[in-house]
């Protein structure tokens, strides 16, 4: 095994290290609490590995430069928080439609608007899926610990490159700012780097958006001899705009299809003490940390409670949730917002079991004690206690 070192590290810093380990070579962005340490870390680390950091004039330009650098063949990313994430929405649509790999970290804070910049929240869950106009598909992942910040950033980069899609790393202030033990390889050289599929045909034959059964078209670096055209307009497999209705339908079907056909590769959930559970918590990101403790406390009282922790937030783990609804007698969704993910949970459960919401939106994570009380209340309501 490769040599490692143990450290106390902040979640945001672990994202930086994950990005460097994944081979990210460009960062463009604008500072904003509570994500700023990611920009600061990239400013320091990227030039060390020959990469480049740019502090852009705003968040829109941040993602713009990332898209440009990605067209130039670099793995590229940006990070922001709510207000900046809102500003990036138009540009996210371009990355979706033109299929430009990139990673966007959103370290959530309390919203709306300037809100409460330094307090934890998970208020952007729905926005990561629906924030830009028009039907579109992105991948959203959410880490719950500092070590997971490191590994999931790598995975985010890999998914972006593999599926030519913007991947959003949805963090919260809890995970972004806390410092935790992490064991990192001393050198990242041995960490495998996922490369986007590049064309192998002669340049004359290259059709920029023609895909094989994977539904993911090969992508040529600008300047590599394959001259192609990128467009935010609806286009056909040549990449040139096409006004025909069939082009729109085909394009949408492929963009959705390239994600959904690979759902099993993309969707990750962690199951914690679910095997014999009759009641399940669904929680993710920093909010899930409370759940581990609450479940252990509940089990100590003899309650058969477990957790499904979605690591992939979007695409929604529909089958997993639907199956869960069949295996338990009640579900409690815990979110640090007024209730967002729960809507999709309900739509997937379709009445198979009761779905409760423990919504917390007062600048603080729930304590295990509070959550235990919620579990007991819900289980009582469902006749399980």
């Amino acid at each position: 095994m490769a040599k490692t070192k143990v450290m106390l590290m902040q979640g945001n810093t672990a994202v930086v290290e994950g990005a460097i380990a994944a081979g990210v070579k460009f960062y463009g962005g604008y500072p904003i609490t509570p994500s700023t340490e990611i920009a600061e870390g990239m400013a320091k680390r990227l030039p060390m590995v020959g990469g480049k950091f740019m502090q852009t004039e705003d968040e829109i330009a941040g993602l713009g430069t990332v898209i440009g650098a990605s067209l130039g063949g670099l793995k590229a990313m940006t990070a922001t928080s709510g207000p900046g994430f809102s500003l990036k929405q138009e540009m996210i649509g371009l990355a979706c439609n033109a299929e430009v790999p990139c990673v966007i970290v959103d370290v959530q804070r309390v919203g709306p608007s300037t809100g409460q910049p330094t307090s934890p929240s998970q208020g952007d869950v729905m926005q990561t899926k629906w924030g830009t106009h028009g039907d579109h598909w992105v991948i959203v992942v959410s880490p719950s610990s500092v070590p997971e910040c490191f590994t999931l950033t790598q995975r985010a980069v890999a998914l972006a490159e593999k599926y030519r899609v913007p991947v959003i790393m949805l963090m919260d202030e809890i995970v972004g700012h806390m410092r935790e033990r992490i064991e990192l390889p001393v050198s990242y050289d041995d960490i495998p780097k996922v490369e986007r599929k590049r064309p192998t045909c002669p340049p004359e034959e290259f059709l920029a958006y023609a895909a094989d059964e994977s539904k993911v078209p090969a992508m040529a670096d600008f300047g590599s001899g394959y001259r192609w055209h990128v467009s935010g307009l609806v286009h056909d497999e040549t990449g040139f705009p096409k006004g025909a209705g069939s082009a729109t339908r085909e394009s949408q079907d492929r963009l959705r299809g390239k994600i959904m056909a690979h759902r099993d590769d993309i969707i990750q959930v962690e199951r914690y003490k679910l095997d014999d559970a009759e009641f399940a918590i669904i929680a993710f990101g920093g909010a899930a940390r409370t759940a581990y403790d609450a479940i252990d406390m509940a089990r100590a009282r003899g309650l058969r409670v477990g957790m499904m922790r979605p690591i992939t937030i979007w695409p929604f783990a529909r089958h997993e949730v639907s199956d869960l609804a069949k295996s338990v007698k009640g579900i409690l969704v815990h979110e640090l917002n007024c209730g967002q993910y729960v809507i999709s949970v309900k739509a997937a459960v379709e009445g198979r079991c009761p779905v409760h919401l423990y919504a917390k939106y007062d600048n603080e994570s729930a304590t295990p004690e509070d959550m235990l009380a919620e579990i007991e209340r819900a289980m009582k309501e469902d006749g399980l206690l």
Partner: protein
Amino acid sequence: MKEALVEKYFRKGHLPHLWCPGCGNGTVLGAIVTAIDNLKLDKNDVALISGIGCSSRSSGYVDFNTANTVHGRALPIATGLKMARPDMNVVVASGDGDCSAIGGNHLIHAARRNIDLTLVVFNNSIYGMTGGQYSPLTPPGFKATTAPYLTIEPMFDILELARAAGATFTARATSYHVPLLTSLIEKGIAHKGFSIIEAVTGCPTNFGRQNKIAAPALMMAWQRDHGVMKAKWDKMTPEEREGKFPIGLLSERNDVTEYTKAYDEIIKRAQGAEA
């Protein structure tokens, strides 16, 4: 434009372009292509990035590395590309609205950084694509669909603005002054640093019609009669200048390190610090 250049640089099957009869965009795009040919650049080493607008459609026609991005944001995307590929010649095609209205901030910041991009502004003094609204480069006193009572807003001198922001090469020509336009774009591409070339051009459909100068040729004749070479301009009195505008190379400086070059220093410092 020469037929051989159409053959060499235009994508097959994409002409006729979708611009209106007499639209100046074709001429300006021709000048860009001719400039690139004059410079003997390898097509693989050229990128043409555009925003959204009639003029921004130009990227689709030519056989380079091209992108028709989102309205106003061609410059950041071009900036990212240039950072990734400092060896490439990155040209940006942008409309007056695209680069001075919604994209104004990116313009001044690209200029400030002095990154080696060549921005060609297709200035038809109007939003062509959306049907004739005024732009920050529409002079006061004209009609636009959003100025039915005539425009009242002062317009930018976009070259003066870019220069004040830090652009190290500013120049202007018109779609009438084709050889001048071509040579200025050529110089702009050759210039290491941020260069902006304003191409005054006509939108007969959406500027001309509303303002009763619909005939494309007359718009060009107007350009011919109102553009004044800088050398002459410099000697004119304010009264003589009234209603006219200077063309030619308006400013150039070479004392500011180009941005990607400056960035190489950062990498050296960082790697030195580590070693």
